[in-house]
């Protein structure tokens, strides 16, 4: 997973300057010793530009701590709770004495465990809304009934699978709680390397260093997504990545791409890329080639899995790749830190790593093409907590965007162009259906985001239910397609004032004046709620400089002179009408 040693991890952490980094608060509840995972967690947090503060629960005190008997294990700022509940310490009988149990005894043990799980969930949620990551029960390497165990539905393995299903379902019913598949980690590392029997006996520490490394990596796929650090776009080199060989030299018949060796490595790699496409990740190309040569492969090679329609942006030219990557990011309206760049050339890899370190780079060594698929599949950079219907449509949405751009180059002026799009906006209060998408937008939106407050589903749900908070979403459609839910606004009411806690728009739909409509909607709602003023807040970040003067442009007055601005719109002023180039603005939030 990472190819540096444990001692080197410790060394890096000892020397790291972390005081200025935001804190990542992790609490760990456990019934076994897992302390050796801490340096890996801190290291992964540091790579994410966070400083991890780990609070370890007492040994085998999960129930007590979930009932609130340990002060300080959960804090208001706790971001994430990891739960390690090994079956051996929960039910020795199920874990190690299975053949001795009658069906009745198995049933009773299962019920006891299910009840414990439910109580722990409830107890933890009463104390914190932090993300819960519960590691599942491990399947036995040597099931109690031997080969007979695998033939019957409710052998030891069957019972443990059922317990994991119960756990998974129970976690789905609480917001912000996820099942971490420990058996996947076990499978990846391998049963013979996952456990360290010496430490299990000496100190009740079951997992080997390799196991803890893999578990920490898996946990951070969730944490990265929670903190909005998941990557949005995979940028691919072409030669010796999508196919073996160089198209400009070997020609269509010379490059290696087929379902049999040696082209199969590249075929399977492309299939892996398609999986990412279908999960909502943008796919782009960055290749030093004649554009026509590359296009020919995409159009005419019978074994290409990727087609032109899957590519959201392409820089195929002879310029340096740092410049090209910046163009890809600009084209797609996303930050460089959202890109993952893949290339076989050490030269390009080092150039990009040096010139634009914000981009994550994966080097695919030319002589290891059989490993390409695995390298991409295991990178864990694209995971999201939710894969929504929106995500699955993202590729087609980008194609529609290309069509809009084409229209724009033909329209005489901006307003005429915007009018020709026939845009329809729908504004409504958040509901259970839009809840996941709204949450995702607060976690991922960086540029058009006035306050960059990150929320979990539990947070938004609380706001939806609160009497003094309104959460509403904006949906945009035009004649080329449906962009889906692209805006979130959260208004908080105190003493006849409405404060805009959150106002954000997806970077996909900027430049169309949608933000004007959004603000007008917020003002109209505040007026309906009999507010005297609406307060807008702006908190500068590295990425939202474009909205620095947003409220001024909307007719608000500046209240304070610091870098973070507070702006006010008095309700005795008239509220302007929505721009006329929108075909329809359908609002369900006020009369």
């Amino acid at each position, binding site marked *: 997973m990472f190819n540096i040693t444990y*001692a080197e991890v*410790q060394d890096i952490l000892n020397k790291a300057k972390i005081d200025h980094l935001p804190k990542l608060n992790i609490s760990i509840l456990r019934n076994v010793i897992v302390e050796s995972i801490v340096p890996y967690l801190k290291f992964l947090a540091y790579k994410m530009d966070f400083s991890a503060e780990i609070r370890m629960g007492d040994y085998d005190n999960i129930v007590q701590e979930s009932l609130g008997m340990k002060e300080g294990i959960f804090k208001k700022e706790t971001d994430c709770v990891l739960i390690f509940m090994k079956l051996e310490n929960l039910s020795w009988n199920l874990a190690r004495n299975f053949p001795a149990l009658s069906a009745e005894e198995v049933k009773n043990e299962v019920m006891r465990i299910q009840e414990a799980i439910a109580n722990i969930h409830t107890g933890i949620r009463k104390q914190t809304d932090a993300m819960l990551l519960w590691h599942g029960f491990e399947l036995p390497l040597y099931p109690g009934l031997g080969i007979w165990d695998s033939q019957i539905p409710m052998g030891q393995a069957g019972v443990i699978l059922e317990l994991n299903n119960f756990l998974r379902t129970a976690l789905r019913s609480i917001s912000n709680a996820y099942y971490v598949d420990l058996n996947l980690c076990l499978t990846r590392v391998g049963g013979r390397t996952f456990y360290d029997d*010496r*430490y299990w006996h000496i100190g009740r520490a079951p997992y080997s260093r390799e196991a803890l490394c893999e578990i920490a990596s898996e946990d951070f796929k969730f944490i990265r997504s929670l903190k909005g650090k998941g990557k949005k776009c995979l940028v691919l080199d072409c030669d010796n990545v999508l196919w073996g060989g160089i198209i400009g030299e070997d020609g269509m018949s010379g490059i290696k791409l087929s379902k049999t060796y040696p082209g199969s490595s590249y075929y399977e790699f492309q299939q892996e890329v398609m999986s990412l496409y279908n999960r909502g990740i943008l796919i782009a190309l960055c290749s030093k080639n004649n554009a026509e040569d590359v296009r020919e492969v995409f159009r005419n090679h019978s074994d290409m899995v990727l087609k032109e329609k899957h590519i959201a942006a392409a820089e195929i030219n002879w310029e340096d790749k740092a410049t090209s990557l910046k163009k890809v990011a600009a084209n797609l309206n996303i930050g460089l830190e959202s890109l993952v760049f893949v290339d076989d050339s050490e030269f390009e890899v080092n150039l990009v790593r040096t010139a634009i370190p914000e981009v994550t780079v994966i080097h695919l060594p030319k002589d290891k093409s059989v490993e390409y698929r695995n390298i991409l599949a295991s990178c864990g950079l694209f995971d999201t907590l939710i894969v929504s219907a929106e995500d699955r449509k993202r590729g087609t949405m980008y194609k529609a965007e290309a069509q809009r751009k084409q229209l724009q180059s033909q329209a005489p002026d901006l307003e005429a162009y915007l009018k020709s799009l026939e845009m329809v906006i729908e504004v409504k209060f958040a509901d259970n259906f839009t809840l996941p998408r709204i949450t995702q937008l607060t976690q991922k939106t960086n540029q058009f985001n006035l306050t960059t407050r990150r929320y979990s589903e539990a947070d938004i749900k609380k706001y939806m239910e609160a009497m003094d908070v309104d959460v509403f979403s904006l949906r945009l459609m035009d004649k080329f397609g449906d962009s889906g839910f692209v805006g979130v606004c959260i208004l908080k009411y105190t003493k006849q004032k409405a404060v805009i806690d959150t106002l954000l728009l997806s970077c996909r739909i900027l430049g169309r004046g949608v933000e004007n409509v959004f603000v007008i909607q917020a003002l109209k709602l505040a007026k309906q709620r009999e507010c005297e003023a609406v307060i807008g807040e702006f908190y500068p970040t590295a990425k939202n400089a474009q909205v620095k003067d947003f409220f001024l442009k909307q007719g608000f007055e500046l209240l304070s002179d610091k870098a973070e601005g507070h702006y006010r719109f008095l309700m005795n002023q008239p509220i302007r009408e929505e721009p006329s180039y929108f075909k329809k603005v359908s609002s369900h939030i006020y009369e």
Partner: protein
Amino acid sequence: MMLKEKVFKIVSQVMNVPFKEVNERSSSDNLGRWDSLQHINLILALEEEFKIKFTAEEIAQMGNVSIILDILQNKVTS
């Protein structure tokens, strides 16, 4: 780097103490951070560095640097 220096370096990294403060007499009795949990981390780091595995009995004995050096000398030369 000689075996002794490698061991001192790892002890210094895992226990987060300056390299020059580590010597043959360093042990869980006199190095503040060397508790049972850090002991596990130290063993893991030594196993990784020297590409060997210690037995459970050896792990229990390796509470001070001079014993660690003895055990390592035997394992590395044999």
